[in-house]
């Protein structure tokens, strides 16, 4: 498995220090929490992403994020990378995040690009869930 050093480091950091890397969960019933879960165990990866937001002007800002990921090292690293990008962003800015940014940040090989796509899908779903509650 030819993983980039960035993937390996991100995976290991997340594994060894889960709290610092936002592994965990919020109560999905809370009104200021949006939850997205994508993937399937049979496919080998499932990502769950939760955002905690608050209104700011005309928009909403992501104040905190929690995630859990079942998947290969790249999937875990991709989730962790995405989580770092999200904090402090407005929902519009978060929606504009493209999987290619994760691919580039982690130097994902072509066969692992689906991990970044999954991460992108997870934030879209989390935002959808949040917006449906407002």
């Amino acid at each position, binding site marked *: *498995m030819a993983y980039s050093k960035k993937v390996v480091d991100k995976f290991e950091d997340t*594994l060894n220090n889960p709290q610092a890397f936002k592994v965990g969960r919020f109560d999905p019933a809370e009104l200021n929490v949006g939850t997205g879960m*994508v*993937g399937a165990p*049979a*496919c080998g990866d499932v990502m769950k992403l939760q955002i905690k937001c608050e209104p700011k002007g005309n928009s909403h800002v992501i104040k905190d994020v929690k995630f859990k990921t*079942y998947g*290969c090292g790249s999937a875990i690293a991709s989730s962790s990378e995405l989580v770092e990008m999200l904090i402090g962003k407005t929902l519009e800015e978060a929606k504009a995040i493209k999987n290619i940014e994760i691919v580039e940040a982690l130097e994902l090989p072509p066969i692992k690009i689906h991990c970044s796509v999954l991460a992108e899908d997870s934030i879209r779903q989390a935002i959808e869930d949040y917006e449906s509650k407002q």
Partner: protein
Amino acid sequence: MKEKNNTIYLDYASTTPVDPRVAKRMMEFLTPDGEFGNPASRSHRYGWKADEAVEEARSHVANLVNCDPREIVWTSGATEADNLAVKGIAKFYKTKGNHIITSKIEHKAVLDPCRQLERDGFEVTYLEPNEGGIITPEAVQEAIKDSTILVSIMHINNELGTLNNIDGIGRITREKGIFFHVDAAQSTGKVPIDLKQLPVDLMSFSAHKTYGPKGVGALFVRRKPRVRIEAQIHGGGHERGMRSGTLPTHQLVGMGEAFRIAKIDMKQDIEKIKKFHDMFLDQVNDIEHVYLNGDVANKVPNILNVSFNFVEGESLIMGLKDIAVSSGSACTSASLEPSYVLRALGRKDELAHSSIRFSFGRFTNEDEVLETLSILKNVVERLRELSPLWEMHLDGIDLDTVEWKTH
């Protein structure tokens, strides 16, 4: 020399290091002061000496599996031996019939030649294993047709370590006059093999799974009752016309020496590895939701295939970075398919994705096994903390009832 390496090697089913005693012997057949001659040279001492060494090596191989040395054909490895057996029989006996029986859990070295034969007009039946990973004689019996010419079933499965009843299968094929090939790449030095007793017509061997060098193997081709095969490599008629090409003396000496040592050391190797196996199994069962793949009552102790539910195999391997093991999940391939062997057992895909093969060998020691167990427990726990599936499980959610948003 290579850099200092602290990685614990538990991937002996993939390959073994060459035993230093074997490497020492091989060195004697390479350099100008050694016996470097071409064994096919009949006109001088160099050739005679190399030929002598090759024939001695052939006897060592034959001796380990109790057959006549004249029944051993050298090949470049078990893959070539499997190809030669399957294609060689199919092509030689194609006028007798066109049906071949094999199984879904064979090595690719048997499956891919079978696929090729299908393209050439042969019909192939791929038997399902039972849930313990065993191909039963009854399953073979039921698949036999009038047009069946060959049955190819492995002895020990490389992913699971499960052991097929080749004696039982051979009795059936012998009675029906069908040829029986056995891939025994994982067997030598692990279980006794007696080809005088076993009703097997062809058997493939590998050197590098038994502390010999890579790039060399052999095919047993029975003389009585006689088995004939069509050669797949032509060019000089070596190996009684069945496999041409200059014999690599040092490689064959290496395989011979490795098999000679295997005969002597087998008992103590097995005893030691059995102890590690039992210790490992006992402790790994302390982890919740762990499944042993393959029938534990019917397997070799050197291979342990375990699924850790709610944890994905590739991330587990990455977490176990100081331990060299194999994953049943082939997530590195573009297809993202979990192991075809585990799927054939009827394991759920997620369990197939979460499997790891640990394989012990002659140079494994108790400290390594204990350290592996300790690292393993820690990494599984950490990955579960990261796993949304584990969280759902703890919340009492049945994962089978969830509607997943696949991508």
